[in-house]
């Protein structure tokens, strides 16, 4: 209990002090996760909508697979990416291991199935609604994909935010491919793990609180953007 109280006080102190190292770690967490989510969204949103619109053999199997991949264990993804990026691995010549780029790749792999699956679910219902109308206009499937993505954009924010949440909360994969190098690949979650292993439980908890607070902030901003957009559509 004293650890809890101490953690709250520490969290407030850390925020008030605007500690440079902490700010850098928070900024790095955001930069890495934002880049990963941007990649995942650029792939996942069109892919999810395409799954809702196109009919092809094996479509159901792909949907089942994508939904299953939402539960990919981060350590497994981390290990896989590590083996690819390791100097002894097929992409070792790129020298990407233990860099923020490696962390972005790992998180993008984790997040993409989430965005595909949620986007598919959201655009599928919309497409059912629009299908007859789109057909009567003679719209091609790719045009239908664009239409449902655009019209579902407000709810798709949820898909992207779910992905962002997964990315910022994840520790197993970035620890393996990033190496938790101070000043280079150390992010919020790996710092929390490190401080826990040093027995600095209050500090670890305080960092966790700050992570939660920043997540709330990001979601609030995303929600309000969505709200503004919905209002404009009137």
């Amino acid at each position: 209990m004293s650890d809890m109280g101490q953690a709250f006080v520490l969290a407030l102190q850390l925020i008030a002090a605007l500690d440079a190292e902490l700010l850098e770690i928070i900024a790095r967490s955001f930069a890495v996760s934002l880049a990963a989510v941007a990649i995942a969204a650029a792939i996942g949103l069109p892919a999810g909508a395409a799954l809702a619109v196109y009919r092809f053999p094996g479509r159901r199997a792909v949907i089942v697979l994508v939904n299953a991949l939402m539960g990919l264990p981060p350590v497994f993804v981390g290990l896989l990416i590590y083996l690819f990026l390791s100097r002894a691995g097929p992409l070792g010549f790129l020298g990407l291991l233990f860099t923020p780029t490696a962390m972005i790749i790992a998180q993008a792999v984790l997040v993409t199935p989430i965005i595909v699956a949620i986007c598919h679910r959201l655009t599928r219902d919309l497409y059912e609604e629009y299908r007859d109308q789109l057909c009567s206009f003679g719209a091609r499937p790719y045009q239908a994909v664009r239409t449902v993505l655009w019209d579902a954009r407000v709810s798709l924010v949820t898909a992207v935010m779910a992905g962002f949440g997964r990315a910022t909360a994840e520790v197993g994969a970035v620890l393996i491919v990033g190496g938790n190098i101070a000043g280079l690949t150390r992010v919020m979650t790996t710092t929390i793990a490190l401080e826990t292993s040093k027995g600095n439980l209050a500090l670890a908890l305080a960092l966790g609180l700050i992570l939660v607070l920043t997540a709330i902030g990001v979601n609030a901003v995303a929600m309000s953007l969505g709200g503004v957009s919905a209002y404009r559509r009137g």
Partner: protein
Amino acid sequence: MVRWLTVLVWGLVWALAGAEAPAQAQDRFITLASTTSTDNSGLFADILPRFQAQSGIAVRVVAVGTGQAIRLAERGDADVLLVHHKPSEEKFVAGGFGIRRYDVMYNDFVIAGPAGDPAGIKGVVRARDAFAGIARGRHLFVSRGDNSGTHKAEQSIWRASGANPAAGRGKWFREVGAGMGAALNTASGMNAYILTDRGTWTGFSNKGSLAVLVEGDPALFNQYGVIVVNPARHPHVKADEANLFVAWLTGAAGQAAIAAFRKRGRQLFTPNANPSTGN
């Protein structure tokens, strides 16, 4: 849709630029694969900036268990290896993965356990006798179980003790398969006995009711060694920078920095390099 994508692409560019900026700021760097015991103690954070100030070379530390650090180095994912299990280090060099091994420093392991000491091992001279006592009474013992240097030291003490902890696996013998700090958190939580390196122990803040019970046995000696990864096997290894680092670490400046490092008022590592006689 187009606007969406534009925003996404710009977000990506911005985020990538932000994430990669620090990497470009340190053009000259080497990657050091080392152990949690040295990193968690704060040693590297203390001495590496001195090396960087002098040489202009940044050292990126990846702190994992000795077993994993050696695997990283074997695969060419590090330029220098600094670990603490001499037989494994010699095997690494003999396998052609490293050029030469140098002693750097030492500290010691200690056996910690509940202050009440139900196994009655406090003050026992031989670590192996203490382990035998823990096994006899089937008292809770947390094992690293992660192939780290400390785990290997633990295993060799178990062998010497004549006890068979594997028989107590899942009962009194708890293998956590985690780093030193995580294992200490577990031991603290279940009031168990544990073998720990003194550096992590001294810096550890969540001791609960654990206390040091056995120390000073020569079997608890903990030697650290440093090896440059063999550039003949991995051509991308920054051998020049890595050699500079090893020369500094085993030379007068590095050795003095190690001796001067204090945690909670205590010296944690004793330098003992002899650069002329690497082995």
